[in-house]
């Protein structure tokens, strides 16, 4: 390495060093990132170990021998498929409802007044501030009063209610960016205001709808608190089911890892595919475009 002469400022040397070191930074970051997600990899690897290895007093990171025993036990031990089905149905229907109601309302607001849009920004923020448990307590009383305890309908209602303000807020942003000329052109072509919305506005705002849908679905799919509180046997969801593998003697830890992986791996792969939408939804509000 050449000696820096007096004419070149210290920063330039640092800068050059920095560029040379970019590869090293890349390597270090890659190692750190892999270390960071190693807990998840460990769970995935454990799920394909023989059941007894999962509760070995001397655990190893990599499996010594592969086995699907944990997955078989998982299915035998509880009606896990039914719980997954409940999760999927409640999450899907509540997502469709929330996104549809949200898009309708957002369209009305964005074409009506931008001030009302701001109210929804505030409302969404407020809903985010309210602890889930604070909504869960009165929700439990209401659902109980309606005789809907342990039904999928109870969960669908709850998830939709929590997701609607978020969907409205997200969609207002999208609709505001669609020029009003779009609506007008559609109206000239013979659409009324509703068909213009369905045929013209919704198709161009598909990216927004997708982002809203992903987040609504994830909230419902990942929910544990409401499902724990509002269901017992019939409408029990996957999260509550999986948590029941945790017993006092830890003997079901193997099948538990299998259930945790079955529950999270498809979602993770899906989320990598739709990463673009997730990133735009998560940085929304924090970073101005």
């Amino acid at each position, binding site marked *: 390495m050449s000696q820096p002469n007096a004419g070149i400022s210290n920063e330039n040397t640092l800068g050059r060093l920095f560029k040379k070191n970019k590869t090293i930074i890349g390597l270090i970051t*890659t190692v750190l990132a892999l270390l960071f997600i190693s807990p*998840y990899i460990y769970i995935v690897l454990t799920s394909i170990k023989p059941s007894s290895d999962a509760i070995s007093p001397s655990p190893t990171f990599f499996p010594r021998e592969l086995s699907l025993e944990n997955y078989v036990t998982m299915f035998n031990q509880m009606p896990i498929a039914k719980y997954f089905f409940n999760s999927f149905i409640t999450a899907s229907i509540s997502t469709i409802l929330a996104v549809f109601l949200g898009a309708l309302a957002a369209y009305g607001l964005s074409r009506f007044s931008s001030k009302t849009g701001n109210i929804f920004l505030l409302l969404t923020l407020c809903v985010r501030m309210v*602890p889930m448990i604070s909504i869960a*307590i009165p929700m439990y009383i209401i659902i109980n*009063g309606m005789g809907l305890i342990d039904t999928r309908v109870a969960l669908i209602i709850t998830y939709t209610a929590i997701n*609607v303000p978020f969907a409205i807020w997200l969609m207002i942003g999208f609709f505001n960016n669609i020029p009003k000329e779009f609506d007008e052109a559609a109206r000239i072509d013979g659409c009324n205001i509703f068909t213009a919305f369905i045929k013209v506005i919704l198709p161009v705002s598909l990216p927004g709808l997708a982002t809203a849908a992903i987040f609504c679905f994830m909230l419902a799919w990942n929910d544990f608190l409401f499902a724990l509180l509002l269901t017992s046997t019939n409408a029990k969801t996957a999260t509550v089911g*999986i948590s029941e593998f945790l017993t006092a003697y830890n003997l079901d830890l193997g099948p538990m890892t299998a259930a945790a992986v079955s529950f999270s791996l498809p979602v993770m792969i899906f989320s990598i595919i739709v990463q673009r939408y997730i990133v735009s939804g998560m940085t929304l509000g924090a970073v101005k475009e």
Partner: protein
Amino acid sequence: MTKESRVSIYFFAPAGIFMLVFLFFPVALLVRDSFFEIDMIAQGRGTFVGLSNYIEAIRSERFIDTTTNTLIYVVVAVGFELVLGLFFALLLNTAFKGHGIVRTIMLAPLMIAPLVTGLIWRFMLNNQFGIVNKLLYDFNITSSRHAIQWLSDERFALLSTIIADIWLTTPFMMLVLLAGLQGISKTLYESADIDGANKIQTFLYVTLPSLFPVMIVAVLIRTVDAARTFDIVWVLTQGGPSNSSEVLSTYMYKTLTRYGQVGESSAMAVIFIILLLAISSYFLIAMFKANKK
């Protein structure tokens, strides 16, 4: 009213009615219930008791301890997440070859359910079979395989839940801060370069101040989420041993389901909402001031 605005109301009405019935009504009911003594089994309307639920909650030592635990959880978890998230964001922002792939790897935990995170750490921190204790022993940090009873020692239970939270949400912090870093105008760096600022000076006087508004929003979002934590704590410790890791959400859940005290749990829930709103308005004011600058 014009025809246009009437139509707008039709569009808004379905969502509006839904929120009214299933969002605003519950919150109103919560506030009402907080002033009543209610028997869950009798299903009656209960008797009005004024502020006594609130007084009982605030006076109870357990509520104070739980609030303190929640505060510790929030401060420690969000603090670490901010530092770690910034660290990873800065590394990724150097745009080395393949940074896109590394970013994807880092984002993987982003969509994992808090419940699953709890399960992962419950497994790894297990007293008998956990790999964390084994690694600590293998690296000679602890003297025995069972040196730390992560989940059943009062000194470590809350820390264990915090570790799980940090692991789950550092990627979120990283993602938002990275977006913030990429949003900083290049001209700022160029002028710092002309002024002869070195890397550290540029970081302190250009990067950090420009990133500040984004940081406040990220910290606000995370503070609120961390304060509401339920799943991770429930799965890891259920608030135990002897309430050492009890946070507000788990305590309220128990008050409602195990002790059936609707009035008292409602009063605590109202206090909780007020606390969170107070904290968030503090952040929002700070952000407003930062934006004005």
